[in-house]
């Protein structure tokens, strides 16, 4: 395994910029997810690291080697594709053996290695099957085994779970994470699914329009999003427009005053819906009076929309506790309470 350094990477297709000024160091054994909406440049970046696309400018280092100009087959990356990309005319074992043969692993050692990686993904039993005889989840497991058999310096996954159904997605995701930690794999995992990215990552890089918006651990990104895009893309966020002042008070455009921990220069103030409690009596630093507009039943949580007296709107998420915690009915007067520490200030 090796660390990966990406320096000022840029890719332009004609006049359109797919990736610009991408700089990131990935430590040995670290799992980094690239997260963003489709067309944000995350897959393009991954393909530049694998060598399928030549960058317009910038450098990529794997270990201490500059691989920017190296062809795909000399880069020692192991890639897993969205649509599995197994060789249809080869059995499971032959698929895995292909990379070993290309890396000139002696015939005598191949079988042991094949068995070991297939054991890792619990596919030993099906080693003589052809890909078309396997389910989607099984095919992706084989693809993972095939990529890991060559003991790559970096493990690359390009939306590996998007073709699987919801239950399986979680299962394979956990397997990938467990495998990655056990083997200490330096891993880049591209996804557009925020829950997936949060669950699996050591660090995440959130991208939009070819630009990295923020890099950090899942909780940093969730608790302290650097800008409105990150705040909105990762989970839900109530955002008030307005102006902060030096006394840690934020005044919304509608005139609502909110106590916030910081943000003298702030133009927007955010607070997560699950941090907003709805109470009959005011309590704490922020208790904004309002009327319940509607209540949405989402199973494990209830989403309550409140129209504050000043005119601002706000969403609160309440854990569904069954009989004990009935959500306030529409029309009911409530106080939306939250801590200044839960407020995030943005400057634009």
């Amino acid at each position: 395994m090796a660390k990966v350094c990406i320096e000022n990477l840029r890719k332009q297709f004609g006049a359109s910029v797919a990736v610009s000024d991408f700089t990131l160091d990935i430590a040995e054994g670290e799992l980094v997810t690239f997260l963003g909406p489709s067309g944000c440049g995350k897959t393009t970046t991954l393909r530049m690291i694998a060598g399928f696309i030549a960058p317009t400018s910038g450098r990529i280092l794997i270990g201490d080697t500059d691989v920017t100009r190296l062809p795909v087959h000399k880069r020692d990356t192991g890639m897993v594709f969205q649509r599995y990309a197994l060789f249809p005319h080869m059995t499971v074992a032959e698929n895995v053996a292909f990379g070993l043969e290309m890396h000139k692993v002696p015939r005598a050692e191949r079988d042991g290695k094949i068995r070991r990686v297939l054991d890792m993904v619990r596919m030993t039993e099906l080693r003589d099957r052809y890909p078309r005889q396997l389910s989607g989840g099984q095919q992706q497991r084989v693809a993972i085994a095939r990529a890991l058999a060559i003991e790559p310096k970096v493990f690359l996954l390009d939306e590996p779970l998007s073709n699987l159904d919801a239950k399986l997605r979680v299962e394979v995701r956990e397997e990938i994470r467990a495998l990655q930690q056990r083997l200490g794999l330096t891993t880049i995992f591209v996804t557009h699914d925020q829950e997936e990215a949060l669950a699996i990552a050591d660090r995440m890089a959130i991208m939009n329009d070819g630009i990295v918006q923020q890099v950090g651990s899942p909780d940093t990104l969730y608790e302290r999003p650097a800008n409105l895009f990150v705040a909105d893309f990762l989970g839900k966020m109530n955002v008030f427009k307005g102006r902060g002042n030096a006394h840690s008070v934020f005044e919304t455009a509608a005139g609502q005053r909110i106590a916030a921990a910081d943000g003298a220069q702030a133009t927007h103030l955010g607070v997560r819906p699950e941090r907003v409690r709805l109470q009959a009596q005011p309590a704490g630093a922020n208790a904004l009076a309002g009327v319940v507009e509607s209540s949405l039943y989402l199973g494990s949580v209830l989403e309550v929309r409140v129209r504050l007296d000043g005119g601002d709107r706000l969403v609160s998420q309440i854990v569904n506790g069954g009989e004990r915690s009935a959500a306030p009915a529409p029309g009911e007067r409530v106080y939306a309470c939250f801590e200044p520490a839960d407020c995030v200030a943005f400057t634009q």
Partner: protein
Amino acid sequence: MDNTSPIDSSAMAGHARRAPRIPWATWLHRVFVVLMYGFMLCPIILVVWLSFFKDAILYFPPSGYTLSWYVRAWDNPAFANGFVFSLQVALLAAVVGVAMGVLAAVGIARYRFLGSKGVNTLLLSPLLIPGIVAGVGIYLFYLRAENALDQDIVGTFGGLVIAHICLTIPWTVRLVMAGMEGLDGSIEEAARNLGASAPVAFMRVTLPMLRPSIVAAALFSFVVSFENLELSLSLAGPGRTTLPIAIMQYLEFNLDPTIASVASVQILLLGLIMLVTDRYVKLSQVV
């Protein structure tokens, strides 16, 4: 089905519900299908039937049946030699044509180069030009080449095979290009990622995935070459006649069931090849 039986309650229920009326469009469709099959199969069945007629002059109904026309056909050196010659030409033309056609198809499908559209059209053009015209054209070209090279080309095995290769290439190009369109590009990328250089990835992964298209292309090439008459007419030489030419020459002076027996053998041969191929590659999925 006897819907009136008092014992069979399910039939009774069925009777009560009445069989759904089949709309006239469905009937029309069925009639059309039957007619089309008849239209396509009628000549084949007729030819095979004729080949067993006893009478030397075609006459309905036949006075009896015999196998002697098959013997006579094989005893006729024009047919026997023509058959073997056609087989050689078709096999060689198919093998070389497919090899060249696959390379051309991959080149056109993969790379955008100056004039790639033009090359594509050029390679498909033998399908558009009447065979007789192409045959004369190639004949005139060969004459010039003979003069320039001081070497016999017209009437030689090589000359005929080269002409037939031109004939087979469009089939390969079209079939293989269609096959490449259906391929998932990330599979070859996976091979590259696992350490295969571009040529190795192509040979080991992409080419095997194209196998159905290539087999179909070889089959079509063989058939097209084997049964070609127009192109061969001006290029075949004395003692080097293809089977279709031998049949035509025989027909000029005779009209007995020998021809039908020759045709039956040819139908049987091509049918067998198709059946055997279909066991390994489902032709219906490719063509």
